């Protein structure tokens, strides 16, 4: 099956006009499977971190959202231990008008605005609500341990 035009166009644009702080490169042997890097937003506990993710466009994309998860360990109330992400636009609020680029921007924004009231990682969310400064401190430490390049 040839790659749909929509995916070719999105890929070309991602390469030609990359979003600052976001990289998405398709695998040569599977053009629906992307290696992704997202820089942690400045002024967030993830600042200076470079987070690796993987993204896959299923058969019925864009009628269904891309599948995406973190490969770098991250301490965040909406991201679980396996890197799965709780984000409305990846689930019920997906629309075919959204794109890889907009989804990755939403994920970057989620790093800047954790939402402990809609948690995926319950233990992290709990801590975030009970002692936010301590949770943010842990998020900073994890960023340094797992997402800063000299330590990778």
């Amino acid at each position: 099956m040839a790659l749909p035009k929509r995916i070719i166009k999105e890929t070309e644009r991602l390469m030609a006009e990359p979003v600052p702080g976001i990289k998405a490169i398709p695998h040569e042997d599977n053009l629906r499977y992307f290696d992704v890097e997202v820089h942690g937003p400045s002024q967030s506990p993830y600042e200076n971190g470079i987070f690796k993710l993987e993204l896959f466009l299923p058969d019925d994309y864009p009628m269904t959202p891309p599948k995406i998860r973190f490969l770098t360990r991250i301490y965040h109330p909406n991201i679980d231990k396996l890197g799965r992400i709780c984000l409305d636009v990846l689930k019920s609020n997906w629309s075919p008008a959204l794109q890889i680029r907009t989804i990755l921007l939403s994920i970057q924004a989620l790093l800047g605005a954790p939402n402990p009231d809609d948690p995926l990682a319950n233990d992290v969310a709990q801590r975030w609500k009970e002692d936010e400064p301590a949770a943010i401190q842990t998020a900073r430490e994890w960023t340094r341990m797992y997402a800063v390049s000299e330590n990778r």
Partner: protein
Amino acid sequence: MGAKIPRNFRLLEELEKGEKGLGADACSYGLANGDDLLMSDWNGTILGPPHSVHENRIYSLSLHCGENYPDVPPDVTFVSKINLPCVDPRNGKVDPTKLQCLSQWKRDYTMETILSELRRSMASPANKKLPQPPEGSTW
């Protein structure tokens, strides 16, 4: 041919299916270690099929999905002792040449496929009355 789903997303699908309990009757599986980002090691259980020597027994297995899964099948080992022709009596390893879903592995087969076939093998007329080690013993 449709999109080729990469290893990790395939394993996430299997995990979600296993967690929701949509898996095959009497078989279950899950990650051995809930924060293993590589999702390599899995635990499986098979409830012994009725009308066989295995009835009411629960068998534990371990499954290892390497980096080329699902292009190649996982390594499957019984943790609980069992007497079955496809299982190495020395260490519990399932011999991939003796279980059809492993010897003729296809990319769309899953861990559920394997556990279900093992359970069918336990219930087959040739195997259902084989003498078994004491219940609950392990290798």
